């Protein structure tokens, strides 16, 4: 027994030593890119969707020989939608894993917390979902933070315009989740309403674990709200929709895209289709060559049968394009050094992507890869996210 145990121990030690000697060499050759996103919790679907987009892009890059002749490897960390956990994960990825660039997840508070770390460590940080304006417009010079996603201030303008044009809303009410993302949109929506000369019925805050939102909705109804503009993730957004249904209030709902980061359709039930919300991409749109290739990968790798099966589509689409843009920048820079990548990102000429053909997507003063004309309004049809008819 003792001999067998000793043999096992010797083998284990030998294997560990061999792994210890060989692994760093193999790892050193790789270009590591990090992802800090919600992989568990209420927004877990968003993390999975982003992972899929990044993985497909990385596999395509590696199939063509990688970047600078080196393989690209994705290293993921779960922030659990918590800024302190996101900060710890980002620090670990930068200092221990030596990632060349970081991608962020759905939660604006987490990405806002990572932004100064990225700028201090000169690590390019690309937001592929979180839309908080302050993530990219952060006052740093040079600024290492980019975004291939919607930006709150621009989405807010689009939401107010859509509520007016589609539903004839003259006095919309705002329902905002009570966190930094809600705060960001509070300012943006007030400014957008003022610019459009639209009076707001009121602004109500909801919590992530609210069971009943009827009191907040009652106040908005009494104030004469003729549409609701919702900024929340799937679970609190669903509680708002269920309360609206219980009140028998058929008010139109125009929403930011946080509700698509979870099982909004299942949580709400049939009335989920009443919410029209913003996306940067719809897999139902006629695909270009990139779209066909991504769909084929989604199908073979994740068993996705068609556009209806794509979970949290913007996460996948934004992440895919962001990774391909980063790849172009690394090739242009001929380096994985943060400052070289940043300058190369600002200098990308053209890329035929999934969402659109990017023409000089970034500059030294503009780090937003997408613009309002790239946004599409969609709604749930059962569990499918389809463009609004």
């Amino acid at each position, binding site marked *: 027994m003792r001999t067998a145990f000793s043999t096992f121990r010797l083998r284990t030690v030998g294997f560990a030593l061999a792994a210890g000697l060989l692994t760093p060499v193999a790892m050193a050759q790789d270009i590591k890119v990090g992802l800090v996103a919600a992989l568990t919790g209420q927004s877990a679907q968003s993390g999975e969707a982003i992972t899929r987009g990044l993985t497909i892009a990385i596999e395509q890059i590696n199939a063509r020989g990688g970047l600078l002749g080196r393989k690209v490897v994705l290293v993921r960390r779960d922030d659990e939608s918590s800024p302190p956990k996101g900060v710890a994960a980002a620090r670990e990825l930068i200092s221990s894993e030596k990632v060349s660039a970081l991608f962020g997840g759905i939660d604006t508070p987490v990405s806002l917390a990572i932004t100064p770390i990225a700028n201090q460590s000169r690590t390019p940080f690309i937001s592929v979902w979180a839309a908080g304006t302050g993530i990219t417009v952060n006052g740093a010079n040079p600024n290492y933070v980019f975004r291939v996603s919607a930006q709150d201030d621009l989405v807010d303008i689009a939401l107010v315009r859509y509520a007016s044009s589609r539903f004839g809303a003259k006095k919309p009410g705002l329902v905002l989740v009570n966190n930094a993302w809600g705060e960001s949109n509070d300012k943006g929506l007030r400014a957008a309403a003022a610019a459009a000369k639209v009076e707001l019925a009121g602004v109500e805050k909801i919590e992530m674990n609210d*069971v009943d939102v009827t*009191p907040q909705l009652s106040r908005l109804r*009494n104030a004469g709200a003729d549409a609701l503009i919702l900024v929340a993730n799937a679970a609190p957004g669903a509680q708002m929709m269920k309360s609206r249904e*219980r*009140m028998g209030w058929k008010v139109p709902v125009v929403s930011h895209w946080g509700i698509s980061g979870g*099982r909004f359709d299942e949580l709400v039930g049939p009335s989920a289709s009443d919410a029209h919300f913003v996306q940067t991409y719809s897999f139902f749109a006629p695909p270009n060559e990139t779209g066909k290739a991504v769909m084929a990968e989604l199908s073979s790798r994740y068993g996705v049968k068609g556009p209806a099966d794509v979970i949290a589509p913007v996460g996948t689409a934004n992440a895919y394009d962001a990774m391909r843009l980063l790849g172009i920048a690394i090739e242009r820079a001929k380096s994985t050094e943060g400052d070289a990548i940043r300058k190369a990102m600002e200098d990308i000429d053209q890329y035929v992507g999934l969402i659109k053909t990017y023409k000089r997507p970034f500059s030294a003063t503009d780090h937003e890869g997408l613009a309002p004309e790239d946004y599409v309004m969609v709604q749930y049809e059962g569990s499918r996210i389809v463009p609004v008819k």
Partner: protein
Amino acid sequence: MDRIALGSALITGTGLGCMYGLVALGYYVTYAASRTVNFAQGVPLMIGAVLVFALTNQLHWPVWAASLAAVGACAVFGLLVERLAVRPFVRRGSESWLMATIAVGLVMENIVLFTFGRDPRGLRNSLNDVGFDLGGLRITALQILIPVAGLLIAALLSSIVRSTRVGRELRAVALNPAAAQLMGVDPARIIALSYALSGALAGIAGVLIAPLYTVSAGMGTMFGIKAFAAAILGGIGGAWSVMLGGLVLGLAEAVIVAWAGSTYAQLIAFLLVIAVLALRPIGLFGRAVAQKV
């Protein structure tokens, strides 16, 4: 405050309060039997909700069968908590059961996270689709069932503790375990039974709240904390005081939400709890018991 907002707050507050009360009754029964509690009492609530979701949505069991199975599983979980995390420490005269119950809860929460999945899920219940309109407010059958079930269970439990043999044994064990043993009562059996009942009560709360809320591995944490606050607020010495404590907390929360918004609800509600306990340490409805020395 708007009439509909107030009406909705009262209905939601009563329902939530009864849920807090049901979970808090679990604290009461184990405290009464052994002067110990399961500090992860929110976990059997979560298990009840997750199991009823899995059994109805994935295995297509009828709701009644899934509910019974879920509550039964929660009772078994209560027994396990007592056997693994309470009894070994109490026997050694250690207070480490406090940490051990939290640890068992965390382990269970993680097991559910990895098996059930990461996403919050939505449970449809036909009782949520049936209802009536009252003054412009839709009241569903489930919103009526929750407080009715909560109050009936509190009444039943109070009656069992007062009038049945098991109840008398429980009170005897609580007063003096050694003397109770001399009189033929098995304290270990009574304490195990109290933990099973505690798990079942939280499980019932989980089954009832699941259609109104979202079902996830982390859903029990805040319910467990608030239920403990409710038990202390009402006075942990009696079934009715615990249930009333839950009702007061639930209603206070809901009215604060209606009046000032949910941002301040927890802040003000817990400040109220602290203020009440500062003025009345035995809880709002608790009775001081003279200790014979």
